[in-house]
């Protein structure tokens, strides 16, 4: 009886889609090679079987090349799952069989799942599965994971797993290749060629290729990777995403939500007065919790729409094209187009962005990408930008936000050039990337991504931001001698803020509240908004007048300077932890924080001082 199974196969062949279907999980899927960078485990929950399934990062072969491949290889070699489920992409069947042969050569128990059957059936391709099964001595289950077809047959075959006989012809092949390996006088690429020549024979014997290969991908690419419009189209897509999610949705949602929050806060206040709650408790709940958490949740609609577009792009196959288009640009800074993907994922959250750097092919590209990815503003910084932009530049919020991305981009280019010259001299990077066919994004996948990401955002608001808001409220309500005070300027928090404030004077925001907001942003970037909301809301009478108080504390130039500082300075603590883990070095992590914060300081000082020259 099979107790454990591991999913393995080429990148982007649908392993995680199958994993989700088998185990009822909702792991991250996308349409580019290298979405899964860590192994994930789950349990098959159907009928009377109980099998632990491990989803592994995609590999093209069993000699590991990039880091996420090492994870798979080590798992296959050392963990000895009862059976390996080898997922094959039927649309790239020759290449898929390369790994299958390698897996069979290891002698481990194997079952093959031939995925994307729906696609090749439309093309008119016919595969003699029985013939292939008899030839290779492995069970081959046809499936179409995206439309949930063949999954239960796969489970049946897993629970009744037994090893089959190989054909004499295939036995000869195995013997020959083992001899080559044993003698060791044949180079790795010659052995690969030998495998492919066997695959050619296999395919010619059992597969009749259809003539009706869809040319949709080629047609779409005529526009998206066109010589003249390819790059303008890319920029337009990015612009449209931010325009729609920030401006259009913002205009629709902000007013309604602010009013809802205002009236919620009022009625909750009245209710608390009615039940005779202590005035400090009322203040804690209304001025601390509701204000802090509410200020962050206000931005949920915009963030959700932004996540929606990001997920659509990820599911469509466009991401790999952007890597293709932009490789030339990334090359200048010593990276390849592949680094675009970690950076784009980083626009949602730096943590998965930093982890996505595992797919890169060299240590240097990985390090550099990990250091540079936090320069791409994450979703949690969005509320800060929207808040400041709405306060000072209400007509142009999306332009301000795009400017913040552009500043991040400039920081990436500048730093890349600098590091290329100084730290990583004379390294030649490798760019080798599969371009998957475009697919219509499946709405179920997209919504699952939106839901998972929004859930993180809301959970954070309910936990870290909640606790942080309470702490901020507490610290601004007591003096350093733990005496209650109504004057925030006497409070503990103001002493802390006033202590650091001089550091920020050259940047134009020496106010103690702003300094505190920056510090709390280290815990989570949303805390910046929550902190300013709690601190600035104090003297106001009910309602939600955050924007007014921000206008009173900042000037347009110091607001810009603050935004630039937030955009570039040290990411939050979870991103730092991820960077430490992925760089596997304290030294590099500390270097990267100091570098990021130092660059932020200089850029922000430049913005403030140059800006002040023009606006005076």
């Amino acid at each position: 009886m099979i107790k454990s199974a591991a999913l393995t196969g080429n990148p982007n062949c649908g392993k995680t889609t199958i994993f989700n279907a088998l185990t009822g999980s909702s792991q991250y899927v996308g349409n580019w090679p290298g979405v899964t960078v860590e192994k994930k485990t789950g349990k098959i929950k159907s009928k009377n079987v109980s099998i632990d399934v491990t989803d592994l990062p995609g590999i093209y072969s069993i000699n590991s090349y990039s880091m996420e491949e090492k994870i798979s290889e080590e798992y296959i070699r050392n963990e000895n799952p009862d059976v390996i489920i080898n997922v094959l992409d039927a649309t790239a069947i020759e290449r898929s069989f390369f790994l299958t042969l390698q897996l069979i050569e290891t002698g481990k128990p194997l079952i093959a799942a031939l995925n994307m059957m729906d696609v090749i059936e439309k093309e008119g391709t016919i595969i003699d599965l029985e013939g292939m099964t008899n030839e290779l001595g492995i069970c081959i289950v046809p499936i179409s994971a995206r439309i949930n077809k063949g999954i239960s047959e796969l489970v049946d075959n897993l629970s009744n797993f037994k090893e089959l006989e190989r054909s004499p012809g295939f036995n000869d092949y195995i013997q020959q290749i083992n001899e080559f390996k044993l003698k060791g006088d044949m180079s790795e690429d010659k052995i690969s060629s030998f495998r492919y020549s066997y695959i050619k024979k296999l395919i010619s014997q059992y597969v009749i290729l259809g003539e009706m290969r869809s040319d949709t991908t080629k047609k779409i690419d005529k526009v998206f990777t066109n010589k003249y419009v390819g790059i303008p189209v890319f920029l337009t897509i990015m612009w449209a995403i931010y325009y729609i999610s920030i401006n259009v949705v913002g205009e629709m949602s902000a007013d309604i939500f602010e009013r809802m929050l205002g009236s919620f806060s009022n009625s909750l206040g009245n209710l608390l007065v009615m039940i005779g709650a202590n005035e400090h408790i009322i203040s804690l709940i209304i001025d601390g919790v509701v204000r802090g958490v509410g200020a962050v949740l206000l931005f949920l609609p915009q963030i959700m729409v932004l996540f929606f577009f990001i997920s659509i792009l990820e599911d469509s196959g466009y991401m790999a094209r952007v890597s293709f288009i932009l490789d030339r640009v990334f090359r200048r800074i010593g990276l390849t187009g592949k680094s675009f993907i970690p950076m784009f994922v980083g626009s949602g959250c730096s943590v998965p962005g930093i982890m996505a750097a595992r797919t890169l092919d060299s240590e240097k590209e990985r390090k550099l990408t990990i250091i540079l990815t936090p320069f791409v503003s994450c979703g949690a910084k969005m509320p800060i930008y929207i808040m400041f932009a709405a306060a000072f530049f209400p007509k142009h919020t999306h332009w301000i936000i795009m400017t913040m991305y552009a500043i991040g981009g400039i920081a990436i280019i500048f730093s890349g050039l600098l590091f290329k010259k100084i730290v990583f001299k004379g390294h030649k990077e490798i760019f080798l990337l599969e371009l998957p066919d475009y697919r219509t994004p499946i709405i179920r996948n997209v919504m699952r991504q939106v839901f998972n990401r929004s859930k993180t955002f809301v959970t954070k608001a309910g936990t870290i931001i909640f606790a942080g808001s309470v702490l901020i409220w507490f610290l601004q309500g007591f003096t350093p001698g733990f005496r209650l005070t109504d004057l925030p300027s006497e409070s503990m928090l103001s002493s802390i803020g006033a202590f650091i404030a001089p550091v920020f004077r050259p940047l134009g925001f020496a106010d103690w509240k702003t300094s505190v907001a920056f510090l709390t942003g280290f815990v989570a970037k949303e805390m910046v908004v929550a902190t300013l909301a709690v601190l600035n809301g104090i003297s106001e009478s009910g309602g939600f007048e955050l924007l007014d108080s921000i206008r009173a504390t900042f000037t347009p130039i110091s607001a810009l300077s603050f935004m630039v500082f937030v955009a570039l300075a040290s990411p939050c603590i979870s991103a730092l932890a991820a960077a430490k883990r992925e760089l596997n070095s304290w030294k590099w992590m500390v270097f990267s924080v100091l570098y990021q914060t130092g660059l932020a300081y200089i850029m922000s000082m430049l913005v403030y001082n140059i800006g002040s020259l023009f606006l005076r």
Partner: protein
Amino acid sequence: MNRLSDLKPGEKGVIKSIDIDGAIKIRMTQLGITEGETVQVEKYAPLGDPIEISIRGYSLCFRKTEAERIILV
């Protein structure tokens, strides 16, 4: 000498040898770029580089520096 990088989009050729060393050559052969295989150039990126090819029924892209070292029959 006929190189992969000499082909225009849409043109096909048969690989004669791969004049590259080290890890990238091993990687390329594992991905199916082997001697005797037919390869078609699909397109060049908007900035002229990298190059997209189709081989063994799928699409792959790499840089021109590599394409220049793939010799065709």
